[in-house]
């Protein structure tokens, strides 16, 4: 009975994380389209939600990476394994909400990875450090700079070309293009992020005893060569629905930072930033590097500013980078604390999990309440009528929060 209860709590928490992932990362795909007035805010997030949902069903390679790439899937079992996954999710949710409150675009994926690593360390589960460095941390360092360079070059070339077309026509044309590029980034985001939660739920199901979901390829001498996962269809539907719902709600606070506060974006810049981001995400996925879409798109927006020789607010960029550096350790610390508190009630105790769930729910409600004191609404971000009319002026991150 306790196992079933913990499993339900884990699944509900995972869906909660996927929802926060949706509204936290909506900005990646649509911020520049909203900032340039290519799309109305509500239209943009609805379109992004649909493409996120579609993306969630495309492949499960990222799900497998999350579930078995960082920790050994076979070492997570029983109630203690479920509590460990639950603690990891708590760390990720709290970090997502905190950065959302401070209007900081940070990586939900890294928050989840940090939570898993933190809970695994205190829970006595071996972390695959080499995999963490080579697949997560090193790409996280390189990817924003690669995208920044490509977006800068692309923006520079586009503005050179625009001299022959005329400013008005260029802006109008690229606004149409931005609808397609935003859809492409949304699709890429769906294929990456919805699947991370699918991986976590599948890991929980394996820990619960659904071992038929894990397929291990064993070589000579019983050495496990590789592991593969089967994600049940109901998990795909739940996760796709959760991330799409979160996206449709619209994380206006982060959309404002990404679209308006890094640099002032025009439609050719937005198109360049989005196509560069989509290209980097897809090329990296092809070579097996799951990237943070947040880092890539942020780098793209900065690059678009550099390419036009427009003012890039490096203070805001610096605050974002600081947030990125702290994401994995901070989520890891919360995950470790959550696991330790739950462990006080006994190893794999359902009571411990419920206590942590209550604490996280109260903390989440508190953050939402605080955010309501200075809300950012869709109407404030709408620039379809007056593309250059800045209703929200660039302000430091802390001040905005």
């Amino acid at each position, binding site marked *: 009975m306790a196992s079933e209860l913990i499993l339900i709590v884990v699944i509900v928490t995972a869906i909660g994380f996927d929802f926060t992932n949706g509204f936290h990362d909506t900005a990646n795909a649509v911020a520049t389209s909203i900032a340039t007035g290519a799309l109305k805010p509500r239209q943009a997030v609805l379109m992004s939600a649909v493409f996120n949902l579609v*993306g969630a069903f*495309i*492949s499960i*390679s990222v799900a497998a990476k999350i579930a078995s790439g960082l920790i050994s899937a076979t070492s997570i079992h029983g109630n203690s394994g479920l509590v460990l996954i639950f603690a990891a999710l708590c760390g990720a949710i709290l970090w997502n909400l905190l950065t959302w409150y401070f209007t900081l675009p940070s990586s939900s994926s890294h928050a989840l990875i940090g939570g898993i690593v933190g809970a695994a360390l205190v829970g006595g589960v071996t972390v695959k450090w*080499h995999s963490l*460095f*080579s697949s997560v941390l*090193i790409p996280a360092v*390189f990817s924003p700079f*690669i*995208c920044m360079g*490509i*977006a800068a*070059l*692309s*923006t520079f*070339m*586009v503005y050179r*070309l*625009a001299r*022959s*077309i*005329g400013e008005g*026509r*260029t802006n109008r*044309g*690229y606004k149409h*293009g931005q609808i*397609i*590029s935003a859809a*492409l980034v949304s*699709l*890429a985001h769906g*294929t990456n992020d919805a699947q991370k939660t699918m991986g976590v739920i599948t890991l929980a199901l394996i820990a619960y005893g659904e071992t038929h979901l894990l397929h291990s*390829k064993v*070589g*000579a*001498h019983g*050495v496990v*060569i*590789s592991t593969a996962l089967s994600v049940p269809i109901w998990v795909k539907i739940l996760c796709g629905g959760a991330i799409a719902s979160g996206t449709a709600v619209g994380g206006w606070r982060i959309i404002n930072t990404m679209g308006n506060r890094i640099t002032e974006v025009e439609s*050719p810049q937005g*198109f*360049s930033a989005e*196509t*560069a981001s*989509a*290209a*980097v995400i*897809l*090329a*990296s*996925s*092809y*070579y*097996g*590097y799951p990237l943070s879409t947040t880092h890539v798109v942020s780098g793209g927006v900065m690059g678009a500013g550099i390419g036009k020789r427009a003012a890039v607010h490096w203070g805001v960029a610096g605050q974002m980078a600081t947030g990125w550096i702290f994401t994995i350790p901070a989520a890891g610390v919360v995950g470790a604390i959550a696991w330790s508190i739950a462990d006080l009630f006994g190893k794999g105790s359902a009571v411990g999990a419920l206590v942590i769930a209550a604490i996280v729910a109260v903390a989440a409600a508190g953050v939402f309440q605080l955010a309501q004191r200075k809300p950012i609404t869709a109407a404030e971000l709408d620039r379809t009528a007056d593309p250059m009319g800045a209703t929200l002026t660039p302000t430091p991150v802390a001040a905005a929060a």
Partner: protein
Amino acid sequence: MNPIAAVTYKAVPPPVPLVDWTALWHIVVISLAFGCGLALGFGLLLLGLSRGGDGKRGVEKIGGYLLAGLCGAACIVAIGVGVYVMCNPPKSKPDKVVAVTSSYVAGIRTDVAI
């Protein structure tokens, strides 16, 4: 040791580099080609439409619309390739060598990666 007898032993796996520079270089080149190519291609499409619409002579109009058509097609192909890659991710990398079975046949060692 009898060189004819088959010997099976576990070997230490070769160290996997922390940064795969070759893959990183490929990512940069492919992203550069697609990212810049798409933005530039779309720009040329707009230029073609602009020239086609404003052109006074038939040749100018045809040239403009031809450029727009070609660039539009190139953009659609590039997007199609992107969507195809998303829908059909590559198979996982070849399994790393975790053990090696070696046999001595007629005094020559033969390694078989598992």
